[in-house]
């Protein structure tokens, strides 16, 4: 069934037209050119991201051959998202998080809600070893053990629930091959085999730190016309994670619903966990709108006589923001004005200050992936994909 579905998706992807017109403000979707521009900007600003060409046979012709997808390797993931189960009691702990000056905006309107800051995870402190808990169990228990309902429960979600426990790599499978005589020479100069010292990985507030690392890829999804995120995980010993283990790092709202294991489009055989992009466009639209709205308010204040008191050191970037709002207000945006910046323009974007108020460009599409990563960070809260907070 899954194979059929995959083929259907492949065909659908093949038949769907390449988006040519810039739509990112109206729909949250971007064109391949804009994807490349945003990717160039991301890789320029945050060098941990780099372009990959992928397998030549799987190259997409609407993207440059050497810029098929973005990758960053070794993204740390300190603890499991399942240990971050978010309850109403945690609402008090929400913190407003400033988006920061790279967007040229300041003030309350631009703050994001950071939901998982400074919470005391008391229940975890009580039983620190409880990280591998499987949420599906409760469902089965609650719904009683009567044969039918349990059977139904197992049918619908049990396929995964029953799976969660099974396929951790069975160490017994490894033939006993320890070789005693292999290294006869005594070796004083090798440090103790601890990869990470126990004292450094302290039991932090009852949460055992199990440092996993992830390879994160961003591809362009032609059908949904949005970027798409892919995850390949490794445990602290560098052993690839199984799908159930990866789902531990996905917030409970999304595991097994929007995050699934799919064939990676730039490899003939590779499978990776992916966030399904069907809602990306609408979420991105909301986020982008929200940002534009806040700029409108600031602009009104500015028009009302007060000079813009933004501490942002780059006024030109600011004017681009305002410009975007101006055009949105005057309704000139849907007429297909050429907004897609060229890659060369994007690479000079952080400092490029040539545009005045007349040269209206709107929210630079270059920021798209930066914003996108902040959105993804909410789905995988413990994987530090959003390196942009460092700025």
């Amino acid at each position: 069934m899954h194979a059929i579905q995959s083929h259907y998706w492949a065909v659908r992807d093949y038949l769907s037209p390449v988006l040519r017109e810039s739509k990112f403000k109206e729909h949250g979707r971007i064109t391949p050119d804009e994807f490349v521009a945003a990717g160039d900007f991301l890789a320029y600003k945050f060098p941990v991201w780099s372009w990959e060409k992928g397998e030549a046979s799987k190259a997409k012709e609407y993207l440059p051959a050497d810029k098929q997808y973005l990758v960053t390797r070794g993204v740390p993931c300190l603890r499991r998202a399942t240990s971050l189960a978010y309850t109403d009691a945690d609402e008090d702990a929400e913190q407003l998080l400033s988006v920061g000056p790279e967007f040229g905006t300041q003030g309350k309107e631009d703050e994001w809600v950071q939901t998982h800051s400074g919470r005391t995870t008391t229940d975890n402190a009580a039983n620190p070893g409880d990280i591998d808990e499987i949420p599906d169990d409760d469902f089965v228990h609650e719904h009683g053990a009567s044969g039918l309902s349990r059977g139904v429960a197992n049918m619908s979600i049990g396929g995964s629930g029953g799976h969660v426990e099974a396929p951790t790599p069975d160490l017994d499978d490894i033939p006993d091959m320890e070789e005693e005589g292999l290294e006869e020479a005594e070796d004083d100069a090798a440090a103790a085999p601890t990869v990470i010292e126990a004292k450094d990985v302290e039991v932090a507030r009852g949460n055992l730190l199990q440092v996993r690392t992830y390879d994160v890829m961003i591809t362009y999804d032609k059908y949904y016309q949005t970027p798409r995120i892919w995850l390949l995980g490794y445990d602290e010993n560098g052993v690839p994670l199984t799908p159930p283990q990866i789902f531990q790092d996905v917030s409970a709202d999304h595991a097994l619903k929007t995050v699934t294991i799919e064939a990676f489009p730039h490899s003939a055989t590779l499978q990776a966990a992916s966030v399904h992009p069907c809602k990306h466009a609408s979420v991105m639209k909301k986020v982008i709108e929200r940002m534009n709205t806040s700029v409108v308010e600031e602009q009104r204040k500015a028009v009302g006589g007060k000079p813009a008191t933004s501490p942002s050191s780059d006024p030109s970037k600011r004017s681009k923001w305002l410009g975007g709002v101006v055009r949105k207000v005057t309704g000139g945006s849907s007429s297909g004005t050429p907004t897609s910046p060229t890659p060369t323009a994007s690479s000079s974007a952080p400092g490029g200050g040539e545009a005045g108020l007349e040269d209206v460009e709107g929210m630079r599409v270059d920021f798209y992936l930066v914003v996108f990563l902040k959105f993804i960070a909410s789905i995988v809260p413990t994987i530090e994909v959003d390196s942009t907070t460092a700025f």
Partner: protein
Amino acid sequence: MTVVQFNPLTSTVSPSLWHALTKLKIDVLKLSQDTVPISASYSAGRTVTDRETGTDVPLPSTLTVAGEAFEATTTLPSHSVSALGVLKNFNTIEEFKAADKQALFNDVAQEIWNSIKSSPDPSKDLSRFLLITFADLKKYKFYYWFAFPAFISKPAWEIEESGWQTAEDNLGRGALESIFTSAQSLGGSSTPAFFLARPSSIPSEYETAPLGQYATFFANTAQSSRIVAFLDPSAHPQHPGWPLRNALFYISYLHSLSPHSAQPLRLSVLCLRDSELPGPEKPWKSRFGIVSLPLAPGASAPLEEGGARPAAVGWEKNTLGKLAPRMADLAPMMDPTQLADQAV
């Protein structure tokens, strides 16, 4: 004085490598068990700040083998240096078990030793590695074992009582920045795996040179001013990374050939753990230590030219800390029936 202890390298194998190996095995290697060249990379060890507690968690860099490891030209990930090695794939698990692993290990060690003895700059060979594999293609299981040969230095290198300290305290920010920028231009655009640094004629400025120029570059430099720097995959405060081991061995070899071989050797080592210049408020993460090589009792020259290859160690331990192969079970990610269960 305590013996310098090095943090062993560990491996991270991308699942895409196993896909590439499967393809290589079916299309190219078939039943051949010849060794094939393979490339990998490592970067500087990092510390990540835990957002919840604010503490810094050390995150050592691992030797990462990616899917394009078999390709002749690969693009290195940013801030990484490459390590070259050989892969030997066995056709059956019995052959894998029965293989003369020590012989394979010695072959790689010999290559490093040859390079140390004869190459003008052995930098790229100092981190050579061996990877033996058995691919169970039907069960999607891959058995593998890495070895990172490192020569045992006799007598062992020692570190001063003060131990490894922050480079910032010892050298100062200005000096570090100078070394860092100079090294970047030395390695093209990224930091080279190993390099040398000495104070230049301009005050508080430093010059750098490739490791291979040790003799000429340091000819007129006082021992206290000689800095050997390397990109350090370790994140441990008191243990430098494994690659330093062969670099120090190379230097001790050069020293044994030099006319000053009767004198003890003393060096400053810079463990570079910053992949970019830190911001004005952020501290440097690099470490600094002064190491010395005591004279071997009874022998003035610990090594002789043309002598036998010294003993080496470096098999990677498995996840249980034993000397045994590791296994990557990709069935959950490759087996069609298991994947079907995951599908929504």
